[in-house]
């Protein structure tokens, strides 16, 4: 079963076309990675799936429904959750207020479910329960990352889009973040993960989609990826790909 499917999607801003026909298949329960260097169109891909940047042509299917022309809010109502780039927690609101807003459409549908869902999210992120009255902006980067993920989960989404979660985090925080995303993965929610930090991304995803100048140039299960493929399709040159290769080896060993 396919949760999300992009067919020949093009998109851009003004006179600039960034996506030149993206094809993407995300299956139920899998974590699909979208990797590419700066300017490859990763972020625009996410925004097009979210409905913030309109698709100029092509189709986007979500749970068997054509959502190409739906607005972003309706997509959230249908069960799309977001962990936006730069985390974007509401800095002036408390942790609990952030979560309450995260469950905005859930609470409109069925307010009585909320306490139970909140509880289960708190169980998964105990640090948030401890800090529920703290303003989100005053928390550490890693805690904000947890909050951003929790805010998406609390709406009980069927698909979560995670946009560059590791950017700007120290290696230690990246480790914490990885654990957080592992929690999401274990809960069985389908996820699309966009990362520039290829090594970080590869350690989580099931399928890798390699993006170059607005086109998916290669798709493969992580197990079938090797250094050369990465180097060629990401356009980073062999020299730097060596490092990513070692990430692959490390992961295969685990």
């Amino acid at each position, binding site marked *: 079963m396919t949760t999300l499917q992009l067919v020949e999607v093009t998109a851009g801003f003004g006179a600039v076309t960034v996506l030149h026909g993206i094809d993407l298949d995300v299956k139920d329960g899998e974590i699909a990675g979208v990797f590419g260097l700066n300017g490859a169109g990763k972020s625009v891909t996410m925004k097009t799936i*979210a409905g*913030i940047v309109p698709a100029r042509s092509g189709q986007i299917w979500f749970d068997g429904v054509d959502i190409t022309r739906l607005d*972003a*809010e309706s997509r*959230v*109502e249908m069960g799309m959750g*977001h962990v*936006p780039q730069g985390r*974007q*927690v*509401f*800095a*002036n*609101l408390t942790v609990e*207020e952030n979560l*309450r*807003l*995260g469950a*905005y*459409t859930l*609470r*409109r549908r069925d307010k009585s479910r909320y306490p139970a869902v909140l509880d289960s999210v708190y169980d998964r992120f105990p640090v948030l329960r401890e800090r529920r009255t703290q303003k*989100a*902006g*005053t928390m550490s980067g890693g805690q*904000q990352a947890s909050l951003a993920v929790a*805010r998406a989960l609390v*709406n009980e989404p069927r698909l979560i889009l995670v946009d560059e979660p590791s950017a700007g985090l120290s290696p230690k925080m990246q480790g914490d973040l990885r654990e957080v995303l592992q929690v999401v993965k274990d809960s069985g929610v389908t996820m699309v993960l966009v990362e520039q930090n290829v090594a970080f991304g590869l350690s989580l995803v099931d399928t890798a989609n390699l993006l170059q100048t607005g086109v998916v140039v290669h798709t493969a299960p992580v197990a079938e990826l090797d250094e050369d493929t990465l180097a060629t399709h990401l356009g980073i040159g062999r020299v730097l790909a060596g490092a990513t290769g070692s990430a692959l080896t490390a992961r295969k060993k685990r």
Partner: protein
Amino acid sequence: MLQVLAIGLISAGIYALFAVGIVLVYRGTKVLTFAGGEVGTAALYVAAFLVTDHGMPWVVGALAAVLIAAAAGLAFEAGLVRWSREADPVVTSILTVALSATIFATEFNLHGNNPTTLETPVRIGSGLDVDGVIVSPIQIAAIVVAALLGFGLQSFLRRTDFGLAILAAADDAPATLLVGVRVSRIRLVLWASSFGLAAVAALLVEPTVGFITPGYASTLYLGGLAAAVIGGLDSLPGAVVGATVLGLAQAFADKYFKGLGLSGLSYVVTLTLLLVVLLVRSYAPEIRKRLAAPVEVTA
């Protein structure tokens, strides 16, 4: 002294009512509304039309005025602001200036400069005697309503999902969209309540002045704008505090500088206070940096 305080607080109540409406829209959209004064004046004309001309009860006229003002807010957002070619807050703010000009001219064409009166349920001249200054019940109501709105609305914003969505939309509209909030609907509500509040403010001010002329609420509205700016533009309690500071400053200046024989003293006070507050505030980060105070944590 008490006299000055009483007079200052009466003005403060008026300014605060306007300032709250200004801050509400600013919080949600980063647009500064310049039209509230004329919207309020026009609402008074609606009330006067129903009450004075057609003998309806004040309550009916007042209610109609507030509702029509709110509807005007909806229409303004849905009909103009949303479709503007430039979605820039400054451009939208200028749009409100244009709206204000249009309403003003229309009032003038329909009524000329002759004062119109609006019969109020409360008799003028009766009320609380504060050291010789008579504070009428409606003036007290204005102060109370302003304070309630300033502090109460803040807690409404925190308590309800919708209120939280307003706060979030102001902080980060794209992220708010991504939790499924219809930000465009929030904007509609904000404009409607801002214009409605302007009508409420004008209704509460009117008995103090006693008559309506075109543009009359606009001069008071300037105080509201200044109060909102002094209060930091994005804080409702700040707006009330700003209004209090401005009202008291004007009252004190009136008492102690009256000897100068300068007309329009309150405008000079407003301008001076604005400049001082804004300049101090824009230098403040610099000063704080020099003092090497603890660094603020940003999101």
